[in-house]
């Protein structure tokens, strides 16, 4: 490991003192921008998912001018839209003992003690405001017959605190944020740039002052200046190629920020979601998630006998292994995602797969249908069952679903302080793009909560602390930093266009995905990770020699877009492997086979790894440097997680 060239400023700015009042005291302490002056400031927001759309709308309501960007044709299409199950909030409407403290506790524990306590507490606090805000926007949450909001339970929790809108909660919340954004666009406070991809962050005198983008319609490269830049650009789960992410999800924005000095935290914390439709063949382009809420009523099992090829209906109960209920009697089928995923992998590794020649376990609704009736089951999961049938041709009413874990969410991301600012002053990261709240494993229904917490209730206040110290109205896109960034973008495009290999970018992406899944997926080993490093380097070399990008750079060119993103994923893959290799413990979703308990659970090493690992760019061809932010647990005492 190299000595870092420039030390990163990893001051978390998280308030000391009683955690219950930390956020209030912090808001009291930070600087505010005079209401009359807000309109003199411009903020760039990249990405229009839950975090980006809610931040853009709220900043505009406060009076700031917002320039919002998305690569999709409309801000309504960001991948938040695909979240199915729900959103957590400590409302305790069910009177089942929930509280802000309990949500905080569950989240810290669920994250296997690798998140910053103050951030998580704040998240739990504002969770209740999110529900109120969304209801007021008209989000049609499920309700009971009395007209009150309904809840369901989710993995990793013993209370019902998940609010939902059928199996389309992410869609409804995103459309709520999108409508708030639309209102501000109509009012002229937000200028929306669709089909525009951010390709550089521009740093002027050490502060983020703009971005360089490529207009995907025309290929034109443009600069946009502002007083601060917010990245709401999502996660990097597509590094595995086969993932539940949308095809467009990519690491490019975060990666370019990293190369401009933003530290990248815990890249190896990638969540593998236990209930996805199994991989069925190379023709597939992605994997599809089936909501975790299915585990509320579905029972997970495999045949007790290895290589049992009987159809499920012919396997009597005595010959079935309901392994989650057997191993974890308290939580049963509702254990957290990482636990459920690894258990499925163990069953398959033992030869008990239910997908001949492949990998999968059953998720069975037979008993739920018998207990509740077909209609009640259809009411809860009808659209999910339909979706499953459309893809596989099988009806879960007739035969158990086949499921298997797949890459889904990334807890790692750009390091941010308590104000959500990265290590580059003026550059913020919100939502899945940052690393802040989930530690080493995210609980179900908490991604939507965090995205909206950041966008509606945290960033719009904390960004004022930075802006108040800045002279308003930076708009100098002729500055040398912008010209250099534009040149870098143009050069990269030219290089990609000039290659005349024989393979599509997709080819390399699949290869990278296979490599990462094999060596840096659900279970990792020192040997595997060490073997992966030269393979990634080799892949990078071959990519830049053998890829072919047809067409031209100054027009709409989807092949070029893909190639640019794949190139960044390959570079990122290296850092992810390095992170997994250096973290010599198992925690949450990061499972190193060398570090496990006697009953195959993750074994943390709090003495040596109770910290966030932050990677800093040290230049082309130079290994990145690793820095740490030590974590302190004053409230939730680290313990071996047990869901038995």
């Amino acid at each position, binding site marked *: 490991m190299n000595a870092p060239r420039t030390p990163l400023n990893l001051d978390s700015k998280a308030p000391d003192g009683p955690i219950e009042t930390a956020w209030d005291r912090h808001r009291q302490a930070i600087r505010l921008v005079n209401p009359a002056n807000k309109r003199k400031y411009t903020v760039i927001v990249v990405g229009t998912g839950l975090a980006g759309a809610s931040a853009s*709308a709220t900043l505009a*309501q406060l009076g700031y001018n917002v320039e919002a960007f998305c690569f*999709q*044709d*409309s*801000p*309504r*299409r960001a*991948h938040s*839209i*695909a979240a199915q199950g729900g959103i957590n909030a400590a*409302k305790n*409407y069910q009177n089942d003992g929930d509280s802000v403290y309990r949500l905080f506790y569950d989240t810290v524990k669920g994250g296997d003690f690798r998140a910053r306590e103050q951030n998580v507490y704040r998240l739990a606090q504002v969770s209740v405001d999110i*529900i*109120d*805000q969304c*209801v*007021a*926007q*008209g989000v049609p*949450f*499920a*309700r009971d*017959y*009395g*007209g*009150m*909001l309904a809840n369901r339970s989710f993995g990793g929790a013993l209370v019902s605190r998940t609010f939902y*809108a*059928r199996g*389309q909660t992410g*869609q*409804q919340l995103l459309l709520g944020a999108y*409508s*708030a954004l*639309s*209102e501000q*666009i*109509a009012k002229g406070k937000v200028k929306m740039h*669709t089909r525009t991809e951010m390709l550089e962050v521009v740093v002027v005198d050490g502060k983020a002052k703009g971005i360089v983008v490529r207009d995907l319609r025309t290929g034109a490269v443009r600069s946009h200046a502002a007083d601060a830049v917010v990245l709401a650009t999502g996660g990097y789960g597509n590094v595995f190629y086969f993932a539940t992410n*949308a*095809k467009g999800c990519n690491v490019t924005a975060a990666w370019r920020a990293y190369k401009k000095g933003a530290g990248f935290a815990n890249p190896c914390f990638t969540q593998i979601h236990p209930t996805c439709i199994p991989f*069925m063949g190379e*023709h*597939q*382009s992605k994997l599809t998630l089936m909501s975790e809420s299915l585990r509320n009523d579905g029972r997970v099992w495999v045949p007790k006998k290895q290589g049992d090829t009987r159809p499920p209906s012919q396997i009597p109960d005595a010959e079935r292994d309901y392994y989650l209920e057997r191993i974890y009697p308290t939580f049963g089928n509702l254990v957290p995602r990482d636990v459920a995923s690894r258990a499925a992998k163990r069953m398959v590794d033992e030869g008990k797969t239910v997908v001949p020649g492949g990998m999968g376990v059953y998720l069975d609704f037979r008993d739920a249908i018998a207990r509740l009736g077909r209609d009640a089951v259809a009411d809860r999961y009808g659209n999910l069952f339909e*979706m499953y049938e*459309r*893809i596989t*041709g099988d009806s879960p009413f007739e035969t158990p679903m086949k499921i298997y874990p797949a890459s889904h969410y990334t807890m790692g991301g750009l390091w941010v302080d308590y104000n959500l600012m990265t290590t580059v002053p003026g550059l913020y990261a919100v939502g899945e793009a940052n690393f802040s709240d989930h530690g080493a494993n995210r609980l179900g229904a908490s991604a939507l909560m965090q995205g909206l917490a950041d966008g*509606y209730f945290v960033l719009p206040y904390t960004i004022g602390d930075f802006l108040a110290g800045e002279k308003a109205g930076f708009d100098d896109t002729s500055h040398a930093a912008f010209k250099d960034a534009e040149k870098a973008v143009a050069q990269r495009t030219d290089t990609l266009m000039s290659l*005349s290999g*024989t*393979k*599509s*970018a997709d080819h390399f992406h699949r290869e990278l995905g296979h490599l990462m899944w094999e060596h840096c997926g659900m279970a990792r080993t020192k040997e595997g990770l060490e073997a992966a490093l030269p393979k990634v380097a080799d892949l990078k070399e071959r990519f830049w020699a053998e890829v*072919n990008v*047809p067409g031209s750079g100054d027009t*709409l060119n989807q*092949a070029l877009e893909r190639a640019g993103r794949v190139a960044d994923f390959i570079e990122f893959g290296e850092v992810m492997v390095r992170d997994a290799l250096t973290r010599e413990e198992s925690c949450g979703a990061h499972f190193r086979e060398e570090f496990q308990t006697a009953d195959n659970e993750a074994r943390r090493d709090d003495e040596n790894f109770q910290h966030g690992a932050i990677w800093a760019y040290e230049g082309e061809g130079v290994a990145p440097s690793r820095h740490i932010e030590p974590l302190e647990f004053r409230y939730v005492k680290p313990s071996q997680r047990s869901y038995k």
Partner: protein
Amino acid sequence: MKVTLKVWRQSGPDAEGAFETFTDVPVDPAMSFLEMLDTVNVQLEAEGKEPVVFDHDCREGICGACGAVVNGLAHGPGKRSTLCQLHLRSFNDGDEITVEPWRASAFPVVRDLMVDRSSFDRIIQAGGYVSVRTGSAPDGNAMPIGKPVADRAMEAATCIGCGACVAACPNASAMLFTSAKVSHLGLVPQGQAERDSRVLGMVDQMDAEGFGGCTNHRECEAACPKGIGVEYIAQLNRDLVRANLGSAAK
């Protein structure tokens, strides 16, 4: 199994377009329609030819990005399905499949199968929201909403904005899209304060974008991947009349 594909190619908004034929494309019945286009594109890219341009993202039928008219049907022959959820098992070996973009003056072609649907965004900007400042909301349970009303609002709110309703309509009308948002917010109590201005603004914008009128063929409902029904169009009509009577009375 093999199919022959006739795909619309058009290099830009103002360029002339034409069908390009790809014969004997090898496909798997378990493949999705977009995965078939991927296969064609990987081949094209490897040959140094420009891939077929099409919008797509989640490939789970929820983002609303994908869509094309397949053998004359918006999103193809599937029932309540987006193009990404259409699988090749819906076709037979040797079939000839024609693929072309949504056609409407309010959805100009960008390139190949990609169209510009920003007109939908502008319709929403014309009133498809509840004006509520972040932080000013009352408790979520302060206003009970009966389950039947909440369910009907949810039905309407499931619209994914894909544009299939416009593509399938003989008149290229956006009434189903517009009415879904008008109805979603018009049904719930939160949407009442702006109910009149919303429907007036959104219908105005819909007409200004150049969409056609509704002649009740119900092709939109049949093509809608979310099965949103034309009863919401009736509700929009009623709300518009109501809003006008209201403004005339003032």
